[in-house]
């Protein structure tokens, strides 16, 4: 099999404009006869569904929550990037493109990333027009902040709730189309399979999560915008329901799955507190703008802190190791996520961790509070302010910037982060891997598209902060509405899709078979029991650091666990009613296969790049060792009936505009 990424000819700067100008159009009368299914209503799905409906297509949208407004995108905190150069700090489309390629450790496609940077500015305009209340300066213009891995301020934000505000904007656009009857919304519905007729995506099988009813839905194209699969690790910053099933089902029906092992471990999350833990909470990366990360210089001090005999605030400056500032003087606390996470793990593995489990480092705001306090005192014309006054003024500034995050921290940890440093540790956060798509965002199955975190494009081996929101909305508002026409132009004579076709029959039968099998296992252990065990294997052997032996073991263990799961899982209740245990079981069953493919992919990629760190491939200083001659390609996996026997198809990455360099943040 050969992959055709369909990258348009011509110079990087004009590819998208030229392509857009030449994409075939579907005239308005024909659009009325074309149905599109959108699975997912996060930023990518809502924006796509709304835009496609505005253009005249008939859209059916699906989400498993009780409302489209609750998609996991709502939880994004820090912000969204855009090359607006409002700060006049030298930002440009090219710089955003370059930062993204470099940040992704040279494992993404130039043309896609350039387009992303190009449309980024439109996203901000669109969101503001919808009434998204971004943070503003006193002059009334939009404010920006900076994020890890870059040296300009291009991140737009709405306090620590940027995802919420952007999603509510997209949700309002979607609601407007629902009210016009152009979108039919299916809340509390889960897609369980894609249906292919003559090799083309022609619909889905869905389950009504309230009644258990199995439904067939036909359409001329199916757009998967179902988010990422970080929950394969059980513990992650994703919402509880986030899952990989829609993407996995698409994969099993023929869509190649790209770079599954590229997962992002976010450096600033609240550490695990005990066995009861059901999820992990992110403390936005924006905090690294003002927080300084450290552990004690001396192991003995770390031990004393762990034993509760020493307080971090009692440790003098000279006894603290600001290890990011030490190792990476030019980027300091703002190194990209993968680098920051590994550095934290390295210190904790060496015995410098600062909480009871030994897996936590400090994120300290004392210096920022003092700095802001002094500035405020100056602004207010206070001469010789007392230390207490400075602290008071500085605390107010920090509160205005991060108040909601600090409050969230205090609720969870029961510690006041204005008084004592926060404790943080890396956690699974985002998946760069996903369904392989071409430049038009079409998968290897004709008529099936993938958007947002569900696809693999744009972020390579590591995503920069504030770029997922940008990508989701770029895909949904500004790419798919055009590129889908290229495919649908050939569908104007197809007519309504017949859901009585044998292919629907068969897909439905298969779904019912899976449900019966799960319900009838009647074993001893809960779904969560298996999910936690899977998560443990993944975190220990396919997490922040990986090696061949561990990955081989993981594959074996996952296969055994999967076997046991199908024999021994226990799902109470019935299949024809609301049954969250059954919903979870279906998702975990897919994670059990996807997890194996992730390990296989990690094993095959004998280099370290971005979020993928293979212990065998590192420099003497412990930095990642990329191997461009052998691995500058996208690993795309073809399903062959068993996740373990997937076939590797390579998409070679061609870099015509940037020079491949060792990523250095020193």
């Amino acid at each position, binding site marked *: 099999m050969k992959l055709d990424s369909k990258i348009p000819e011509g110079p990087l700067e004009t590819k998208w404009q030229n392509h857009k100008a030449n994409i075939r159009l579907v005239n308005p009368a024909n659009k009325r006869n074309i149905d599109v299914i959108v699975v997912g209503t996060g930023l990518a799905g809502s924006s796509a569904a*709304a*835009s496609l409906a*505005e253009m005249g297509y008939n859209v059916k949208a699906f989400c498993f*929550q*009780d*409302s*489209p*407004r*609750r998609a*996991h995108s709502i*939880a994004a905190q820090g912000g969204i990037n855009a090359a*607006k150069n409002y700060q006049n700090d030298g930002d440009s489309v090219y710089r955003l493109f370059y930062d993204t390629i470099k940040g992704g450790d040279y494992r993404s496609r130039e043309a896609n990333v350039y387009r992303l940077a190009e449309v980024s500015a*439109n996203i901000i*305009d*669109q*969101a*503001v*027009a*919808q*009434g998204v*209340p*971004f*943070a*503003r*300066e006193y002059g009334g213009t939009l404010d920006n902040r900076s994020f890890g891995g870059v040296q300009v301020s291009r991140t737009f934000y*709405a*306090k620590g709730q940027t995802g*919420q*505000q952007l999603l*509510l904007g997209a949700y*309002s*656009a979607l*609601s407007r189309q*629902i*009210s016009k009857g152009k979108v039919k*919304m299916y809340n509390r519905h889960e897609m369980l399979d894609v249906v292919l007729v003559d090799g083309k995506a022609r619909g889905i099988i869905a389950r009504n999560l*309230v009644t258990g009813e199995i439904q067939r839905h036909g359409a001329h194209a199916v757009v998967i915008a179902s988010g990422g699969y970080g929950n394969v690790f059980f513990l992650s910053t994703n*919402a*509880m329901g986030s899952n990989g099933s829609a993407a996995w089902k698409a994969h099993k029906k023929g869509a190649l799955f790209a770079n599954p092992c590229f997962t992002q471990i976010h450096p600033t999350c609240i550490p695990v*507190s*005990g066995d*009861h*833990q*059901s*999820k992990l*909470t992110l403390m936005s990366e924006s905090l690294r703008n003002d927080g300084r990360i450290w552990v004690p210089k001396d192991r003995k001090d770390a031990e004393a802190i762990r034993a509760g005999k020493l307080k971090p605030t009692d440790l003098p400056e000279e006894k603290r190791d600001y290890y990011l500032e030490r190792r990476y003087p030019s980027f300091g606390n703002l190194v990209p996520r993968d680098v920051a996470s590994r550095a934290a793990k390295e210190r904790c593995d060496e015995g410098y961790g600062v909480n009871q489990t030994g897996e936590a480092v400090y994120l300290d705001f004392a210096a920022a509070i003092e700095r802001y306090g002094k500035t405020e005192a100056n602004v207010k014309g206070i001469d010789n302010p007392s230390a207490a006054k400075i602290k008071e003024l500085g605390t107010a500034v920090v509160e205005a910037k991060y108040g909601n995050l600090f409050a*969230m921290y205090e*609720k969870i940890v*029961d510690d006041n982060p204005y008084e004592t440093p926060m404790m943080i540790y890396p956690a699974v956060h985002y998946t760069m891997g996903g369904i392989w798509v071409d430049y038009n965002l079409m998968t290897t199955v004709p008529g099936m598209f993938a958007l947002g975190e569900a696809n693999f494009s744009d972020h390579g081996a590591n995503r920069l902060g504030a770029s997922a929101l940008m990508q989701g909305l770029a895909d949904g*508002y500004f790419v798919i*509405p055009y590129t889908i026409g290229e495919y649908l132009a050939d569908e104007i004579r197809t007519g309504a899709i017949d859901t009585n076709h044998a292919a629907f029959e068969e897909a439905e039968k298969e779904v019912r078979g899976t449900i019966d099998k799960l319900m009838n296992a009647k074993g001893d252990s*809960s779904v*969560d029991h298996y999910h936690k065990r899977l998560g443990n294997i993944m975190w220990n052997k396919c997490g922040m650091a990986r090696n061949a032996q561990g990955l081989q073991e993981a594959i074996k263990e996952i296969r055994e666990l999967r076997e046991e799961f199908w024999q021994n899982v*226990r799902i*109470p*209740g019935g299949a024809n*009613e*609301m049954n*969250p*245990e059954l919903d979870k079981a279906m998702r975990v069953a897919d994670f059990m296969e996807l997890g194996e493919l992730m390990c296989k992919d990690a094993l095959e990629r004998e280099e370290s790049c971005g979020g993928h760190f293979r212990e065998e491939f590192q420099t003497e200083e412990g930095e990642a060792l990329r191997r461009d001659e052998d691995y500058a390609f996208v690993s795309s996996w073809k399903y062959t009936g068993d996740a373990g026997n997937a076939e590797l198809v390579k998409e070679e990455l061609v870099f015509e505009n940037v020079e491949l360099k060792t990523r250095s943040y020193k």
Partner: protein
Amino acid sequence: MDLKLKIWRQANQNTKGELKDYAIKNVSADSSFLEMMDQLNEELITKGEEPVVFDHDCREGICGMCSLHINGEPHGPQNATTTCQLHMRKFKDGDTIYIEPWRSRAFPVIKDLSVDRNAFDRIIEAGGYVSVNTSGNTLDANAMPVPKADADEAFNSATCIGCGACVAACPNASAMLFVSAKVSQLSLLPQGKVEAKDRVLNMVNQMDLEGFGNCSNVGACAEECPKEISLENIARMNREYLGASLASSK
């Protein structure tokens, strides 16, 4: 800690529900309220009983999916906190905790503690948006400066998570706080002003159609709101509504 739980169990919308007693042991003070519920469900599953159904997703206090009346209070005892962010350290060993669903005609129970809040979606569909298509040619975002105070105020209103606690808290089951938060956000911004009159009329009309009660200025909504949406929103909406009604009756 060890706790006694009294939990509302209801098989579906058409059956009558009742409070059932459960006992749970060894709950960590550091676990969240929903993690305590997970622990209970794990025990129920092991015993071969049906776990308790409740809604939740983000567990970060932002998606608005979680609900629960805890000891008679929507989202429980802690101020400005959703159920998913409430931690067990707020309870004491030996406590008895009552756990019930939102109670409102407009929010029918689906199963156990899960209710149907789609009425909120329909209110937004009635006008909770700015009518602007996606084109790529919209006005530059900085072309229209917005005073910081207005932007901040609009943001505060926009932080509503659509959880429905305001309705659950209100003796009249009024949805005024929820509706007014959206009306306020959009009417405070120049982008939303153009349609402000129709918006408020249509949204209020839909609110009434959904069977939410009238507002009699009790203020329980704002007290229980996990996002501290203020009563000023209601006052603003009332002004907007009055202005719009006068204009439309002219």
